[in-house]
């Protein structure tokens, strides 16, 4: 039995530490915190932006808009914030986290009710969801997930929120709500039309919900960004024809 670690092991440890340190954020890296519903479109846009801005590397942090705002407010090193609703961005602006003058709406979306592809029951109106055939309904948590806030607004206006709350399965992001429906763990769910379009063989759109407010996505550079020019360029890039064609491909509307 030797008491000191074998030299091979020590070398391995050093190698791992060295490999880890090379992963540290590079100066020209741009960190974009974006709403979960933007995941696929933004991943397609990143190489286009990098090609147009040589030397800049984009990295994404996807989650529901609420948690993203919380990370920014606690000092996360983010350069650009893209939210799925105006309310979250308004909060960020009020607290001075973003450059208000540079804020842009870049896409719009619509709210739909989806059911599992195998579902026997398909609602034809929001009121149908109060029937006993719908036991569990996935809704984004209104406190932190924009799609949940839109859903709550619509259901409250229809006088159905109370009945729906008892059936509500809260989701941490719109993508989680979509996953619950795709796995048929819930009988229906409220998601964006762009999310529903990603899994056409697993979910079907039962109805498109008319919302009182337009679902507009804003983006803005973060005030404390260490890379303000790149951050500004990224926000502007979202409105170029190149980026627009990607958004259109995923079903987003024009702002």
């Amino acid at each position, binding site marked *: 039995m030797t008491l000191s670690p074998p030299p091979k092991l020590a070398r391995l440890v050093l190698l791992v530490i060295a490999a880890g340190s090379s992963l540290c954020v590079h100066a020209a890296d741009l960190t974009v915190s974006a709403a979960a519903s933007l995941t696929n479109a933004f991943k397609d846009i990143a190489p286009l932006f990098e090609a147009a801005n040589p030397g800049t590397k984009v990295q994404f942090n996807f989650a529901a808009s609420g948690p993203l705002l919380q990370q920014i407010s606690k000092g996360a090193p983010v350069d650009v914030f893209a939210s799925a609703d105006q309310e979250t961005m308004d909060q960020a602006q009020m607290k001075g986290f973003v450059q208000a003058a540079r804020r842009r709406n870049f896409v719009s979306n619509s709210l739909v009710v989806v059911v599992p592809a195998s579902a026997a029951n398909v609602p034809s109106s929001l009121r149908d969801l109060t029937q006993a055939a719908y036991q569990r309904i996935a809704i984004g948590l209104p406190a932190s997930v924009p799609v949940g806030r839109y859903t709550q607004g619509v259901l409250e206006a229809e006088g159905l929120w109370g009945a729906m709350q008892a059936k509500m399965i809260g989701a941490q992001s719109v993508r989680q709500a979509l996953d619950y429906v795709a796995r*048929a763990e819930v009988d229906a769910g409220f998601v964006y039309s762009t999310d529903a379009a990603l899994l056409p063989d697993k979910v079907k759109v039962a109805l498109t919900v008319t919302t009182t407010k337009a679902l507009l996505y804003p983006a803005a550079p973060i005030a404390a960004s260490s890379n303000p020019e790149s951050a500004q360029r990224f926000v502007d890039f979202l409105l170029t024809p190149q980026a627009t064609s990607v958004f259109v491909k995923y079903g987003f509307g024009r702002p």
Partner: protein
Amino acid sequence: MDTAWIALLLTLKVAGWATAINLVLGVGVGYAMVRWRFPARELIDAVLALPMVMPPTVLGYYILVLIGTHGPIGAWLLRQFGVRMIFTWQAAVVAATIVSFPLVFKSARAAFETVEPQLEDAARLLGVGEVGVFFRVSLPLAWHGVLAGLLLAFARALGEFGATLMVAGSIAGKTQTLSIAVYEAVQAGQDDTANFLVAVTSIVCVSVLLAAGRLVPGRVAHRQ
């Protein structure tokens, strides 16, 4: 702050059930490992210890795939009993049980290994049956280690987060345990709620550790 108390009660209920199930499963399997020789014993031992080292999300995914509506166990439950496990507190118990199982099983196995076989043989010579030997000789002698394992498992089950969130969701009053309530409050920027929940959780954890310190020392362990 009602949500905090409901979450606390739910957390204790889930952890209590998980520990009770592991008392039977973990002690049973731990004893079987020591008592009988069978092929691939060490391989089975390693597989059973996996939940201790695997990321909770991997476990959560396995459980989701197995007991989900389309999973083999989930589909069977739905057909036979019309029961859907996902998004119920029972699913949280399943997650907590699997995650904390190795702690009971490993401690029980180690404890049973320290029991002198001669003592068990002496009981058999005196005409005690196998069940009697287990309950009157082996278990009392190993109880010290088993209890330590159970307390560790209870503490682990109290704090379970990843797998639970994946299979039980976060339904206030139904599946929202303390750790998940904290996560949700922080996500939503409700710092007041988060502070209160964190304080409650810390007090509960300290209480469990103090209780463990009082229960486990050898002098209190049952010796016959």
